[in-house]
């Protein structure tokens, strides 16, 4: 099993290297260290969000509200900055607010058994509406943000911007949570077979709740990074980005049916996406192609994953799903 998972991630890593190589053949500038650092830095928000989404998908759920949550936390962070609050407090508040939105998703899934896709489709629109209400539809622009607020993610630290270091820290943190804690085990158990998980004493709903809260907290953190990086906050920021996040997970081999996936898969999936995104303008393809490419990537990845899953073994009995 681990062999198979390893090979899948190795395959994806190989695909990324080959793709980068092909681009480099025509456009050598793409693989200069500074450009690669830039590409990684641009992909950092996607990596962080994809990791949170991965934990949610592992538990047989999906979180479509991450992008809206990001926009809300970013807007609140920008407004707090306007009010002159200190940066550590702002970042903490963004993470907490994100966690609260995630926890609301989680509670609805846990306590009321509502399918996560419905819950998060709903909270996605509600959250966007709330941003409009608190901001009055106004933009917060570059000149309204303090230098430290904008500058912190861009500060260079041993050759990498702080935003990249934060992404790396999140990768390590998630590696520990998923691989070394009871919660991580529980996520796999819940997604792999919820009924068996119940009999081994795992609270399925509670695990899903924690996964959503974690995903929300990471979305909150990304919200601050995003707003500071692009130095603008408005209602429609990161609109549709939840699809990129899900796509990164699917490409990274995380099974949408739950229970299968890895941190390295999510990171590679996000990198694959980030490289395509950054390579398009270099190759000279209009950015309007990106949406169609995301869609195609999702479809190919899910088809490939399904085929691999089928090869793993024959399904003798389908798990009976309770319909309440």
């Amino acid at each position, binding site marked *: 099993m681990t062999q198979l998972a390893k090979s899948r991630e190795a395959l994806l890593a190989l695909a990324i290297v080959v793709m980068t190589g092909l681009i480099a053949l025509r456009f050598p500038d793409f693989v200069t260290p500074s450009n690669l650092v830039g590409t990684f830095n641009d992909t950092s928000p996607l990596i962080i969000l994809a990791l949170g989404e991965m934990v949610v998908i592992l538990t047989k759920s*999906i979180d479509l509200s991450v992008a809206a949550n990001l926009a809300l936390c970013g807007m609140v962070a920008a407004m707090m900055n306007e009010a002159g609050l200190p940066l550590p407090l702002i970042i903490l508040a963004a993470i907490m607010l994100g966690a609260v939105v995630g926890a609301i998703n989680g509670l*609805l899934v*846990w306590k*009321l*058994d*509502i*399918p996560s*896709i*419905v*819950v998060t*489709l*709903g*909270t*996605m*629109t*509600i959250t*966007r*509406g*709330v941003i*409009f*209400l608190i901001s009055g*539809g106004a933009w917060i622009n570059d000149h309204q943000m303090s230098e430290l607020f904008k500058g912190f993610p861009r500060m260079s630290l041993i050759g990498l911007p702080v935003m990249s270091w934060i992404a790396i820290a999140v990768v390590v943190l998630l590696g520990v949570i998923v691989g070394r804690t009871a919660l991580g085990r529980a996520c796999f158990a819940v997604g792999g077979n*919820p*009924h068996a998980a*119940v*009999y081994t004493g795992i*609270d*399925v*709903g509670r695990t899903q709740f924690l996964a959503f809260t974690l995903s929300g907290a990471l979305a909150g953190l990304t919200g601050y990074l995003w707003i500071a990086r692009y130095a603008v906050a408005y*209602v429609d920021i990161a609109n549709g980005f939840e*699809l990129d996040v*899900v*796509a990164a997970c*699917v490409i990274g081999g995380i099974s*949408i*049916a739950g229970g299968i996936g890895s941190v390295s898969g999510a990171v590679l999936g996000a990198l694959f996406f980030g490289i395509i995104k950054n390579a398009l303008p270099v190759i000279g393809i*209009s950015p*309007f*192609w*990106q*949406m*169609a*490419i*995301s*869609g*195609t990537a*999702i*479809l190919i990845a*899910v*088809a490939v994953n*399904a085929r691999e899953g089928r090869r793993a073994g024959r399904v003798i009995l*389908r798990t009976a*799903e*309770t*319909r*309440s």
Partner: protein
Amino acid sequence: MTSPTVVQRQIPDRLNSPLSRALRSWEALLVLVVIAIFIINSFASPYFLDPWNLSDATYNFTEVGMIAFPMAMLIIAGEIDLSVASIIALSSTAMGYAMAQGAPVPVLVLIGIAVGLACGAFNAMLVTRMGLPSIVVTIGTMSLFRGISYIILGDQAYTGYPASFAYFGQGYIWWVFTFELLLFVLLAGAFHVLLHRTSFGRMVYAIGNNPTAALFSGIRVARVKAILFLLTGVMSGVAAVCLTSRLGSTRPSIALGWELQAVTMVVLGGTNILGGSGTIPGVVLAALVMGLVTFGFGLLNVPGIVMSIFIGLLLIGVIALPRLWSRLQARRS
């Protein structure tokens, strides 16, 4: 799903009469809600009861409603199609392209519907032939279909549709009754018959309740699901014709977020999001509720994005409240 509970099934001494059952149904509740909204709105704004205003208000639900009918059947059968709004975008773009090449109006309509059918067929192939989960497939095609529109149009728009094309979205058949409203009513009737009066409809319910049992009882599950995806595609094409005709232009961002509205309408209509139950009259009533509420908010100058908060709350609320209610009932007994 969370814990293995023992389900107690009781057989009542006496069956409910059809009338008392009808009065306690979800649909009856929706009728009350429609009447309540009607009364509240007519007090809230003096412009509400104007027949021409009400006629305009029907546009708030006719196009989304057309998609909601096949979507309801799809959800009853245990699948979902999140790509409907993107199908509208692609279909509208195709019509715009044909229009720019000088195609006559009947050809435009045909192209709009044919593109919808093709998109539906693509979804159907991926879900039923390759056995992929419809949620992921249609999230992918949602991005792909609208993405193709963006490739073709970029930040441009198609405008200048012929004047006779405007009839589908702006025409009146008699007095205040629009062509779209007539189409909506006819489609509601057709889908009602299809779901509630044909063996095909029974198969849809059977598949939604237990796909394995349905397969073993001789229902061609994959074929039925494929037909439902095709129907959804075609109806998205029809909605695209109406919407494009009404707006008189095509942008890649056309009908953005409509998949959410359609799913909300279906769920508000009493359809179980997990499949197995739901009715067409319920969807029609839900369409009325959403249309009247949006219209009422519009008259009170509430911005569109605030309405979307309401739609989101509605979507979660209509699923959450019955569950909370039944939990309270269970605790009491």
